[in-house]
């Protein structure tokens, strides 16, 4: 390698061939260009003719220079010059690449990959061997692999196969395998770190130092991976904590909650304050949306820890409300069920039903109003459910007071109830005393106006004080709770309705219930099985859910993945190569989320390793000029070839100009299109408002000014008549450009056909078809009295134009308007449909009640109705009617009225036709 500072040549010996250039120069000079050859019959006459002076034929100088340049470029290119060559790797033994490919490395993986490839490229140039050491476990059974010293090209193939894994790295383990290798004394170690420190990272760095000279590559602290910590549900909001490694500058990341199918349920920015490592997001979602959330992710983060998976256990807790038995009352608005439902609904999902029905599904809380005696089976079932984690919320009442033998109570009750403040008592109704610290209600504000008139009393006992969560002002327990195994039994010593107290009317009741629900353990289906859960979907290194590979082992048991992070999780449940994060379970309903973030320690950036040089993953400035030089040489050689051909007259110079024209056309067409689209978006909104705020008649603009003016005047005249005679109060008619405008706003389109209209484009045709298929009606007017007699024929100009314009439009089967057709009766009774001309046939879609509400989509005629309808501003007719008589114009107006009625009312008018028959039948 020849190093010239800014420029270096990898194959400098090739530069020696530059000596040969002058020789080539000489050779190129002596060869004259070959003459063009022409056959010529009159060559006899040319024989002997000589030009007066013979200038020596030589290759032009510029051509020689061009060819010299080509050769120069090839030689320089083969010598492989490098701009800004990177320094030589230290040492001369093998190059050891230690690659952190755990979860945190997925962030900026590409730059790590580039660095790896570049390092291997440098090793290849220096002809050094390469050792690859990924620090994360591989997904297969084998432990971390280290390669033997490999030639660089082989190492490159292997390196390109290295992928980040969604589990943590195990650096010391990797180190052991490295130390088994004999690397000589002058190895160079490059540690492509993920920038995240762990307990072993310092020791690991020192050990690498002992292997050889060490370079540590790491990302900028701000660019390290972030973690979405397990969310907490405080009943109202979902609190998500996001953690970052660095704590220097303020930073905002975008957080989104995704549903099962990947749709975004919520998307909020999360802002890290400067110097804060944690950022908190409170996500307030309606229950339905809240329960759809399946993943919490950070946008632009591609690590397994930036995506937190939610399963059934973190759903908002469903609450069962027992509505059978005594709870069902004749006055539903006074029933306990009603009050409970209203109080629970804001924060939880409430299900109603009998105990059996409710327990058949997963349930967090079962609210049991005072329904009287439970059967032994029900008691048995309930207590079993409570022991496996359920929360049973009971309310006292007359029935409970009458029968205190119930075992499903937190405390033993005295028989009977206590009445405060009745007609026969001295006491006044008691209010609540403030909530004691340590109870779930701590911190709630007491509503002063809450009065309890009646309650059930607990038998005094030693543990009564511990079990009491709320007391009345006189110290008697109002709410008691008892934990049984994993579950709770909680009793409100008063009713859930207003019979015994007005607690149920206060906002405090809602808050108290919310706290109670928050106590529950989440869903418990009462029969937690202990079978291993097979993997359903697991994350890959970039945090995307993929189908699990065969190496993924089932999770040992369900229900235990919620183990909080601070406790030491059992080894089987740690995220590892055999248990990558993801969903586990038999099916989607019962799956369990296995999250990496649960077990990750606090995120800390990797500190500098003493005695090692540090660098970042920024791309090196080295540029290899070889391909560019060779490409330039190739292009010049092609140019030279073209020039030689041109000089011999074999290529004509027109070709490039044709190409230029083509390119120019393409560019200008693109520019035109862009301009058009821009203008269109500006028009649309105003026009849509204009078209929809009033019912409007519309006509298709033909592009012929005179005809468009008549169409507009005609529809204006018809609108005036409609306003005067019918309840149709339409706005001023609008002209429609079928290429550009939206048609959907108009119930009826009047389309005068002219021979010189432009054929609709594919887009316009599609719009017209949509319009016809979704309720539109088009009246085609041929404006030519002779046309419709041969409507399927070939004869008249307008007929041809109609065929051309509607070539791709789905025109249904047409027939002359039947004698009993609605169009003849929708307002006036009509036999003929004259316009400016009389007599022509009117063709209409053959009646088909299936489509478009029975209204014909297409009506074709030739009588130039707009011409007959057209009036000036003062209401004077513009055009004469043929054959004459104003009576014909009146009939034309009547046709217009009938048509608009028909288009607007659809089969309503068709039904009117049947009225005589209906009346006749009713009369019988």
């Amino acid at each position, binding site marked *: 390698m020849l190093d010239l500072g800014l420029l270096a040549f990898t194959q400098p010996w090739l530069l020696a061939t530059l000596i040969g250039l002058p020789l080539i120069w000489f050779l190129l000079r002596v060869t004259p*260009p070959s*003459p*063009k*050859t*022409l*056959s*010529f*019959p*009159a*060559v*006899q*006459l*040319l*024989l002997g*003719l*000589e*030009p*007066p*002076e*013979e*200038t020596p*034929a030589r290759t032009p100088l510029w051509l020689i220079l061009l060819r010299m340049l080509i050769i120069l470029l090839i030689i320089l290119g083969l010598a492989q010059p490098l701009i800004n060559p990177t320094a030589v790797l230290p040492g001369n033994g093998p190059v050891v690449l230690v690659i952190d490919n755990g979860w945190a490395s997925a962030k900026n993986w590409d730059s790590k990959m580039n660095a790896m490839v570049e390092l291997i490229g440098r090793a290849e140039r220096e002809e050094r061997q390469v050792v690859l050491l990924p620090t994360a476990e591989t997904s297969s059974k084998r432990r971390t692999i280290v390669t033997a010293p490999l030639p660089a090209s082989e190492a490159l193939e292997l390196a390109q196969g290295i992928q980040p894994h969604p589990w943590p790295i195990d650096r010391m383990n990797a180190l052991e395998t490295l130390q088994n290798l004999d690397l000589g004394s002058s190895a160079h170690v490059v540690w492509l770190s993920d920038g995240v420190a762990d307990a072993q990272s310092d020791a690991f760095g020192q050990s690498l130092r002992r292997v050889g000279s060490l370079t540590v590559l790491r990302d900028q602290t701000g660019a390290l991976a972030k973690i979405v910590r397990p969310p907490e549900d405080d009943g109202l909001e979902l609190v998500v904590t996001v953690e970052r490694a660095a704590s220097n500058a303020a930073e905002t990341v975008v957080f989104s909650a995704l549903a099962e199918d990947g749709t975004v349920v919520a998307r909020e920015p999360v802002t890290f304050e400067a110097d804060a490592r944690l950022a908190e997001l409170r996500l307030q979602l309606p229950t339905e949306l809240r329960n759809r959330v399946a993943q919490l992710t950070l946008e632009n983060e591609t690590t397994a820890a930036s995506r937190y998976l939610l399963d059934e256990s973190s759903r908002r807790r469903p609450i069962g409300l027992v509505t059978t038995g005594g709870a069902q009352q004749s006055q539903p608005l006074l029933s306990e069920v009603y009050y409970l439902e209203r109080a629970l609904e804001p924060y939880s999902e409430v299900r109603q039903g009998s105990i059996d029905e409710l327990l058949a599904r997963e349930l967090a809380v079962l609210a049991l109003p005072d329904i009287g005696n439970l059967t032994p089976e029900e008691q048995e079932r309930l207590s079993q459910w409570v022991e496996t984690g359920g929360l049973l919320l009971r309310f006292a009442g007359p029935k409970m007071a009458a029968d205190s033998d119930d075992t499903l109570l937190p405390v033993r009750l005295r028989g009977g109830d206590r009445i405060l403040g009745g007609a026969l008592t001295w006491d006044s109704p008691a209010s609540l005393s403030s909530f004691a610290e340590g109870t779930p209600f701590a911190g709630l504000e007491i509503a002063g106006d809450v009065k309890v008139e009646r309650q059930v009393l607990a038998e005094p006992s030693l543990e009564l004080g511990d079990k009491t969560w709320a007391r009345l002002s006189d110290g008697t327990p109002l709410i008691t709770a008892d934990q049984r195994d994993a579950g709770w039994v909680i009793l409100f010593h008063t009713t859930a309705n207003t019979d015994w107290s007005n607690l149920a009317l206060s906002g405090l009741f809602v808050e108290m219930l919310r706290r109670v629900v928050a106590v529950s353990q989440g869903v418990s289906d009462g029969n937690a099985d202990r079978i291993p859960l097979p993997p359903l979907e697991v994350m890959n290194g970039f945090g995307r859910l993929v189908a699990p590979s065969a190496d993924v082992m089932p999770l040992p048991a369900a229900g235990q993945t919620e183990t909080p992070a601070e406790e030491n999780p059992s080894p089987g449940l740690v995220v590892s190569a055999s248990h990558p994060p993801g969903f586990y379970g038999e099916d989607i309903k019962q799956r369990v989320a296995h999250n990496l973030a649960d077990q990750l320690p606090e995120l800390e950036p990797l500190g500098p390793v003493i005695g090692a040089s540090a660098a970042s993953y920024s791309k090196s400035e080295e540029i290899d000029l070889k391909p560019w030089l060779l490409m330039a040489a190739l292009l010049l050689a092609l140019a030279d070839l073209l020039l030689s051909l041109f000089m011999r007259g074999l290529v004509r110079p027109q070709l490039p100009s044709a190409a230029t024209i083509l390119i120019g056309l393409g560019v200008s067409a693109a520019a035109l299109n862009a301009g058009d689209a821009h203008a269109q978006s500006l028009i649309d909104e105003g026009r849509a408002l204009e078209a929809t705020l009033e019912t409007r008649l519309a006509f298709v603009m033909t592009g012929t000014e005179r005809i468009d003016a008549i169409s507009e005047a005609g529809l204006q005249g018809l609108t005036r008549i409609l306003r005067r005679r019918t309840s149709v109060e339409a706005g001023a008619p609008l002209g429609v450009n079928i290429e550009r405008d939206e048609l959907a706003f108009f119930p009826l389109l009047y389309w005068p056909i002219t021979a010189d209209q432009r054929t609709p484009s594919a887009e316009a045709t599609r719009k017209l078809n949509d319009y016809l298929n979704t309720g539109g009606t088009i009246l085609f007017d041929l404006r030519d009295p002779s046309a419709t007699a041969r409507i399927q024929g070939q004869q008249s100009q307008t007929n041809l134009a109609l065929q051309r314009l509607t070539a791709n439009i789905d025109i249904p089967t047409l027939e002359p308007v039947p004698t009993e057709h609605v169009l003849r009766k929708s307002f006036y009774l009509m036999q003929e449909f004259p316009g400016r001309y009389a007599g022509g046939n009117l063709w209409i879609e053959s009646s088909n009640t299936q489509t478009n509400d029975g209204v014909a989509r297409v009506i074709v005629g030739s009588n130039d109705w707009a011409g007959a309808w057209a009036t000036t501003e003062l209401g004077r007719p513009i055009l004469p009617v043929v054959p004459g008589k104003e009576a014909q114009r009146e009939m034309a107006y009547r046709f217009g009225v009938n048509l608009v009625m028909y288009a607007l009312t659809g089969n309503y008018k068709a039904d009117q036709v049947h009225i005589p028959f209906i009346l006749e039948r009713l009369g019988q």
Partner: protein
Amino acid sequence: MPIQQRAEQIASALPPLLVEAEHVASTVAQGVHGRRRVGQGETFWQFRRYESGDSPQSIDWRQSAKSDRVFVREMEWEAAQSVWIWRDTSPSMAWTSSPDLPEKRRRADILALALSVLLIRGGEFVTFLGSGIRPSNGKTTLERLAKIIDHGDQDNAGLPPVMPLPRFAQVVMISDFLSPIEEIEEVARSYAARGVKGHLLQVVDPAEELLPYDGRTRFEGLEGEQSWLLSRVESVRKPYQQRFKAQREGLQSIAQRLSWGYSSHRSDHSPNTALLALYLAMTQDRGR
């Protein structure tokens, strides 16, 4: 388009030629265009009353027997001659300087056939020299001639073979006449010695007349001539054009000396002009 059609198309555009020919015919005792009068021939012309001095052999007895008078049958005077057309089929004719122009050979073929059409329409006996077909004025002759042309045979002789032709036959030679003047004169003389009238029609390409090339160019002949390399063609354009003119003047002087016709045609001009000129030359010749 088949060559016959094309030739007929060109020929049909020449009615004024026939008018002119008719005018000539009234004064010329020979040839087809002068035959609308009594004379020796085979075609019936008219009956007329016998007058003293008429040969008794000329009395048509059948006609005379139909009435009391004696009628004489008169025949139309007819003295058609044969025209022998020769067109150059050497490789040098199969050449054109630009794809927009027809080959000289093609132009020569069209002219030959168009001339045949005109002549046959006028009743002349026509054939191609060396084709082996007897001169005839039948419609089929035209087709046979067209077939010969379509066959497209080529030979290397730049000049017609000297063949014994009947006296007073006419020979039309269509060629680029780029052979040495002496050789052309020798052939023409040997025909003229037999009393054959002739016409020379020189068909040339514009490039042959103008030499519009420049630069370093090697010229190669089409008939195996020596090739010639010119470093700058533009510098020899003038002398070449003089040589070409000399060739043309040589041809003209041959025609003058033998009182033959000579005309020249460039393939970028309309063939009709050339045909008219040629035909005029032939008909005027008759008038002499």
